[in-house]
């Protein structure tokens, strides 16, 4: 599987990382080197093997479905690049 410039651009878009057009060929080349390495996995016979979901045998613990925390608006917003009137502020989303 070889990644071309169009695929590299698509992946960057999906990852929401701006990559300038002139940087795409080098990026595609790096992807190909890494994917070439990963492709060794095709040699392994995985017939009938379950994909791992948990590395420890335990099941995830459940907790009571109750409110455990809250009333921390100021703390929650304290690190925001732009917070106004008790909200996170972002550029206009809806026209």
């Amino acid at each position, binding site marked *: 599987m070889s990644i071309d410039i169009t695929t590299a651009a698509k992946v960057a878009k*999906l990852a*929401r*990382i701006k990559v300038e057009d002139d940087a795409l060929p080098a990026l595609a080349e790096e992807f190909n080197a890494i994917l070439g390495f990963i492709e060794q996995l095709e040699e392994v016979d995985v017939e009938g093997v379950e994909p*791992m979901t948990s590395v*420890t045998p335990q099941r995830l613990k459940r907790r009571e479905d109750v409110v455990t925390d809250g009333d921390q608006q100021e703390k929650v917003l304290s690190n925001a*690049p732009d917070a106004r009137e008790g909200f996170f502020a*972002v550029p206009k989303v809806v026209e």
Partner: protein
Amino acid sequence: MADLNKLTLADARDKLRGKEITSVELTEACLSAVDGAKALNAFVHDTPDLALEQAKAADARLAEGDAPSMCGLPIGIKDLFCTKGVASQAASAILEGFKPEYDSTVSQNLRDAGAVMLGKLNMDEFAMGSSNETSVYGDVVNPWKVDDRNLTPGGSSGGSASAVAADLCLAATGTDTGGSIRQPAAFTGIVGIKPTYGRCSRWGVVAFASSLDQAGPMTKTVRDAAIMLEAMCGHDAKDSTSVDMAVPNFEAALDGDIKGKTIGIPKEYRMDGMPGEIEALWSQGTEMLKDAGAKIVDISLPHTKYALPAYYVIAPAEASSNLARYDGVRYGHRAKLSQGDGITEMYEKTRAEGFGPEVQRRIMIGTYVLSAGFYDAYYNRARRVRTLIKKDFEDVFAQGVDAILTPATPSAAFGLGEMKDADPVQMYLNDVFTVTVNLAGLPGISVPAGLDKKGLPLGLQLIGKPFEEGELLQFAHTLERAAGFVAKPEKWW
């Protein structure tokens, strides 16, 4: 008393309790060592006022005879751990200015155990790297030096390794996703243990790959690792993968006998092109454990070869998901926007400016392997291979093997910048001996075992059974005593 910063945790603890020294004296010695070691670039956010305040409180507790296990002991905290009111930015520009309103469970556990925090330690950005060259703070320098080159301390916990090896702090926290505690420990001649997955709470530790990440201590001795690990771990309701199991007294288990125990030597770890010195060290380590009464058996872990490629699917996949949260909205950096830019441009510019090249690369690889059409071929296949890798270990443990001995790294520390033009895969090979342990969720420890011809430290790795850290530390302690590694880097900084 001179050079208090050179003490081990165990010795400092005993001297504090014996009223020979005070925590303030000890903390001041460390702070002055930190100040004098800017050339190493290990500490990146110093907290001297907080440290002295904590030291005074510790002295008061010691005077009252109410001293918990780490009372008054000065340590460094990797920048990946959230620390209340203290910058915590995972060595990334995207978390510039982030000061958490809370402590991670592990750093809180250490606070509760009375430890003194000297500051935050440099690392690879988001713990992605094996040489500490991807940090927004710049490279960390290894205190070990054999010629005019500056060497890497390894990564990603490079600041922790460098700080402990240079006696800037008595010990430090690290995290290990593919070898990030054990490889830097080996490169700097210190001890580093990654406990079983689930031993330490991941809550409040900036996430890289959640199914692989574990915190652990980086220390000068195995005894210190036992002391600090016990303080760090324990069940935490805030991390659903943290195990609800009692934490044993690891230190008390250290002096047990390893007679009659079985150590496995996996043939797949004998790699082509492995330096002869590492091969020789491995044989010496095997002999040492044999002399201590252990039975040595050859074992096979047939899927070892596929661990790194599986890791480089699973870890980037999880990272791409975990790092989606850095979007310029809730914390950290937001890019300056141009006229007409909407929210998508904000995300894309923020993430392009905030993430360094290695982090961007891994996010995009992760995005690719999870994308429609490739999910089965890459991600699910890698998770199946992971099941087989874990089974390899289960099989040898079922055959009666108690622990496995391997080299910790395929080489000694290399020069900073030397891998700059290599393709990313070459750097990934640093973790070839350590990454299997994360994939199988097992505990692993790196113990300094000797010096190479040039005089650089080399480590051996012991891999234990799940939740058998006590026994693993006992093997490590035996190896440490037999190897008698006492070399320290000569001070040049």
